């Protein structure tokens, strides 16, 4: 049994962390209390801390397109509240329950800590781009704010972005503020069938290089199941989407006959892309997420497939590759990292057994000068190393 801090507010959060810092006792930070989150495993710690009791929307001004929430607020609660005003979190965060077979509801703090973003990322930016303000408690127990509730702000260092995607290794977020967007009046998909990876990425590139309001672009190769599907999503006003779909079909003529996908069918397709649905089963396969320049993706995949049995698909017009490794002693790490080595991009091991995540670098290893900066930054937020120590990188 591990003991767990469950602070009700920022004050309680701060005193819990101060206690832990005084006792030099490392804490595992959790959102909704899902047992094992991503990253390097944090075995053997006596204490955890959950933000599950710090919940609720703290600020919502629909007319100013801004919403703020306490960290333990379920994402679904935020979505529901925004939907009442026909608004949305722009970055379309994925729901990891599909991949992990877990049931705890994702919290907004966990989303920010992981900079979790979905298919719309290529059109409107990542979680970090919508996040405009945070409050957090550092490993010293200090309450710190950065950013705010306005859309443009360059006052002081941007600790907002620094903490987005830091996996709770620098501070525990106590409030997060986003700019939001109106839901598009209309959303539909345009698809092509029967293409190989190279041609498919070329078709997506043509679409993304057009001016037709493309908000997502994915390719699901034939190896995933039935036929291959190459799709883009158009979002905007009624007229612009209809016009874009017609123009795109023309643009794509040399690739094949474009098909329209609308309504629930389109929406469900993008949910599956967002949540990497096709790779979820079987649960014991390791899953990677590769971020790289789209034009390099087909080569990298061809390279990996020569050496490793994988199931995979592309999001972000080819710039994001989801990969499930069928069978390998090292979760495929040596092959994946070698194939990525000259691309400049990076690979993250998203799902793997805890034994595997202990053995293999989960996040892309950092060059020495960047690692040194990362260590210094950890030290200045969390000198006693109480927060998620070692979750991202050994010693950090």
């Amino acid at each position, binding site marked *: 049994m591990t003991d767990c801090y469950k602070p009700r507010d920022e004050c309680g959060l701060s005193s819990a962390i101060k206690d832990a810092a005084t006792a030099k006792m490392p804490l595992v930070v959790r959102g909704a209390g899902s047992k094992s989150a991503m990253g390097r495993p944090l075995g053997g710690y006596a204490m955890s801390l959950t933000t599950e009791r710090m919940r609720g929307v703290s600020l919502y001004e*629909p007319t*100013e397109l801004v919403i703020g929430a306490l960290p333990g607020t379920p994402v679904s609660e935020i979505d529901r509240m925004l939907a009442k005003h026909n608004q949305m979190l722009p970055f379309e965060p994925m729901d990891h329950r599909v991949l992990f077979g877990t049931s705890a509801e994702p919290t907004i703090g966990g989303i920010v800590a992981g900079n979790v973003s979905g298919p719309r990322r290529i059109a409107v930016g990542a979680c970090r781009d919508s996040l405009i303000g945070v409050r957090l408690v550092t490993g010293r127990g200090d309450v710190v704010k950065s950013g705010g509730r306005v859309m443009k702000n360059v006052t002081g260092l*941007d600790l907002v972005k620094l903490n987005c*995607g830091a996996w709770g290794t620098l501070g525990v977020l106590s409030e997060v503020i986003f700019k939001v967007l109106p839901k598009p009046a209309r959303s539909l998909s345009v698809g092509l069938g029967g293409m190989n990876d190279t041609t498919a990425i070329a078709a997506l590139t043509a679409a993304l290089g057009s001016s037709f309001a493309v908000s997502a672009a994915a390719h699901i190769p034939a190896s995933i199941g039935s036929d291959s599907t190459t799709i883009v999503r158009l979002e905007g006003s009624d007229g612009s989407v209809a016009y874009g779909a017609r123009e795109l079909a023309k643009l794509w003529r040399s690739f094949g006959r474009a098909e329209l996908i609308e309504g629930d069918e389109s929406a469900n397709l993008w949910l599956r892309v967002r949540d990497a649905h096709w790779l979820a089963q079987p649960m014991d396969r390791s899953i990677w997420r590769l971020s790289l*320049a789209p034009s390099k993706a087909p080569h990298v995949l061809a390279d990996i497939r020569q050496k490793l049995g994988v199931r995979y698909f592309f999001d972000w017009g080819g710039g994001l590759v989801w990969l499930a490794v069928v069978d390998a002693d090292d979760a495929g790490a040596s092959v994946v990292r070698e194939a990525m080595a000259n691309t400049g991009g990076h690979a993250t091991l998203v799902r793997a057994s805890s034994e595997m995540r202990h053995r293999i670098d989960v996040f892309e290893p950092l060059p020495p*000068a960047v690692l040194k900066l990362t260590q210094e930054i950890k030290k200045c937020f969390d000198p006693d190393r109480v927060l998620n120590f070692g979750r991202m990188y050994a010693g950090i």
Partner: protein
Amino acid sequence: MSKIRFTEPNREILARRDSIINDLTRLVDPAGLITSTDECRAYETDALTAYRKMPLAVVLPKTTEEVSAVLKYCHDTGVKVVPRGAGTSLAGGAIPSEDAVVLGLSKMNRVLAVNYDDRFIRVEAGVTNLSVTAVVAENGFFYAPDPSSQLACTIGGNIANNSGGAHCLKYGVTTNNLLGVRMVLIDGSIIDLGGDYLDSAGLDLLGLVVGSEGQLGIVTEATLRILKSAEGARPVLFGFPSCEGAGKAVADVIAAGIIPVAIEYMDKAAIEICEAFAKAGYPLDVEALLIVEVEGSDAEMDATLADITAIARANGATTVRESRSAIETAAIWKGRKSAFGATGRVADYLCMDGTVPTGKLSYVLAEISKIVQRHGLRVANVFHAGDGNMHPLILYNANDPSQQSKAEAAGDDILRLCVEVGGCLTGEHGVGIEKRDLMRCQFDDADLVQQIRVRAAFDPRWLLNTDKVFPLDFRCQG
């Protein structure tokens, strides 16, 4: 007299000037080392011209390796460094000190790669903002952030200040359009953050570097996201008989879920100044003007404009005038983008840059005019209204010292007001030296201490742009 304090220069460094210059000659091409008083004068201030300081010397390296050698030398010998792009900072961010070497990026102005398939361009940091778009325009692409100073300002300066522009309402500011940088740390080490892909590995150091005002390192190369231009774009002028009506119209457009590419605001004073300069056809019989730009296919623009026009009319708009040609469009934007320059021809001005929630625009505009009147001065307002980023230009006479301090006091009052209503001190111009001493209005000590610790993780000896951003009594606390 002048309000902004400068620290006493380090006498030991001043005494070593000759030997420092001698050492620098071995590190950079001789053509890139400036030491004569006459030539250094071009670097003694930026666009905050009320303040000037002669630098110890100016170096203009041509390569990342030269930047690295200079920084390593300065680090090892304890010499301060002030990074500089084009010197268009309005906050004094590039103003040197007598004991500092200015490191200018103007000779690093090559375009390194353009990739339309992966939609990026890689440039050296001294490339000007406008030339980036100029390079990709022939293929129908553009680089979104478009500061009014884009003809002169550099990508390195844009990154340091997280610069924005009229078209950032839809496309975001620099930080949302930057994929990667190569930068040199004060100890001379060269690092790459991000690259030609989305979301860099590890901590978001790229996000931290943007807006850090040259305090964390010197950016020498940048990879920028480029976008395909819309099929068409059309600005429309909406004239209002009252500032409140215009402010309310902005809030109502945003509230209706319409995000045009740009919503720019001008009050009567600004309209008159800009119209006299640019002959853009702005209506002169109104109290406030909105320039709203929409883009897309013709049908789409028509539909969006119909909605916006209805909102404008409901708020009392008396003039509605669509641009009918590329020439008119160019004139409309020329007028807006030359607003600061045109103002500079009629008076000296201090440009404020606070951001406020859009719902507070009307209130804040009214309060600003009261504040400025209280100090016995005049104001012209011309700003990015869609995201609440205000630019009151406080007009004064720089030859009258009492007016300068009144202008500065009025500016401080305005920025305090911005913070009070839930906004911030600076939306896109940076803190520099200008707003350094106001940082405590927006931040508690704990906030500032944490920022300073992060700063020290990059530059433990506080050599990079030392006297900027943080109040002078607030320094490294380890």
